[in-house]
């Protein structure tokens, strides 16, 4: 029985596909020809630009060049790497891997490539250095007799509001302060920015009350000192840790 099996499998071994010399040489020739073709296309492009003063758009250049590269890759995979006459599982692995790659590059490009469409209608929500929720607004300022509309970044107002409500009111004016206060009422404690991390709050009443949040150094350093680099913050944090 086992001898019979061995014989059968021994027969199987003969079935490994042997690539013919013609196939291998022909594939090499096509690969070299395609390589020459991609370079030739560059010269054709230059010639077209010179003769008809028409520059081939980049997307077309990229599409043609990458298509030729893909054809070359398929030839190498199918004939040099024997996928055409091989266990289909190997092809499946490779295709699955390419699918993962497609997701990786596709979703990344989709994100980065379409941010231009999102920014315009999110513009008023976006602030360099963080977005203190609801704390930006436009104020009208009189300058040289003309009324100007200014977009104010009210991170400072947030910290003033947290630390010293009187200063905030004086800075913003009564009406604006009411507005900030009104908006900040729900959000200020949740707001985080590059200068200040979000104070810990939770749904459980009194859970965090034992820790007084007023004196944490993030607010001290953040307010009004936007130029501070990260290194300095890091050093401060380290010093604090050491003293505890």
């Amino acid at each position, binding site marked *: 029985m086992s001898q019979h099996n061995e014989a059968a499998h021994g027969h199987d071994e003969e079935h490994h596909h042997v690539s013919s010399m013609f196939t291998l040489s022909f594939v090499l020739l096509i690969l070299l020809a395609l390589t020459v073709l991609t370079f030739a296309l560059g010269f054709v492009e230059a010639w077209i630009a010179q003769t008809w003063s028409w520059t081939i758009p980049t997307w077309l250049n*990229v599409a043609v060049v990458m298509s030729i590269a893909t054809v070359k890759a398929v030839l190498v995979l199918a004939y040099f790497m024997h996928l055409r006459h091989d266990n289909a599982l190997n092809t499946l692995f490779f295709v699955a891997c390419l699918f993962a790659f497609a997701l990786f590059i596709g979703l990344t490009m989709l994100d980065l490539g379409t941010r231009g469409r999102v920014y315009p209608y999110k513009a008023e929500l976006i602030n360099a250095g963080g977005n203190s929720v609801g704390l930006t607004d436009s104020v009208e300022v009189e300058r040289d007799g003309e009324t100007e509309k200014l977009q104010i970044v009210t991170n400072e107002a947030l910290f003033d509001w947290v630390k010293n409500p009187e200063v905030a009111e004086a800075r913003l004016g009564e009406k604006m302060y009411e507005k900030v206060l009104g908006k900040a009422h729900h959000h200020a404690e949740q707001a985080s920015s590059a200068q200040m991390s979000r104070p810990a709050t939770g749904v459980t009443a009194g859970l965090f009350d034992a820790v007084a949040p007023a004196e944490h150094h993030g607010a001290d350093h953040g307010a009004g000192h936007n130029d501070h680099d990260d290194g300095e913050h890091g050093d401060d944090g380290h010093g604090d840790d050491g003293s505890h």
Partner: protein
Amino acid sequence: MATIDSQQHTRPALADRAVPRWQRYVPGHHWKNAHDEFEGAKIGMWLFLTTEVLLFAGLFVAYAVFRMKYPEAFINGSHYLDWRFGFINTCVLLLSSFTVAWSVRNAQLDERDKLVRNLFISVVCGGVFLAIKFIFEYGPKWAEGKRPGSLFSYPNAENAYEPIWWGVYYGATAIHAAHVVIGMALLTWVMVGAMKGKYGPKHYTSVENVGLYWHLVDLIWIFLFPLLYLIH
């Protein structure tokens, strides 16, 4: 027959020096037969190759992202490269891929001399590729200050983001070159084995799998080279 071999009972022909080593090859005891062992090893190799592809996928995505953000720097970048070196290196790698594919055929048909010769040509091609890369490309560019990131000191740069282009260029091509070096070492190892008669119709797993690795190196270059040299 004076040889004392603990596995003599499973390898009856082991001591027979007249028989080539590939004929005496016995698959691992946990395999049903040599064919299954060969297929299993190849599946493992393909799985490894997918991880290699995903390694380079990161570099390709880095290229795409930075190209999208700083197109001018990348247009300048591709103009700094000499297409002739890219062309020669592409042809050299394609030729080596051909000789490696041929060497698998040689092993299958028990053509030992041709097998050794083709593997040798492949290793030489790898060497030529690296020589061109280092002598004509990396060397002069590095000397001119065309370096990645903070090492950048090229005085005639036209775009502030050219250091990023060089970062992508050196990153992608150097990791590829490292694969060429590893591939050459593996091919040399297979070549030495082939000289000793280790590979033949019944057993050529290493020839096949090292060949697959070398083809992947070629495959990566097929895409790297238009991205770096041709698109402008």
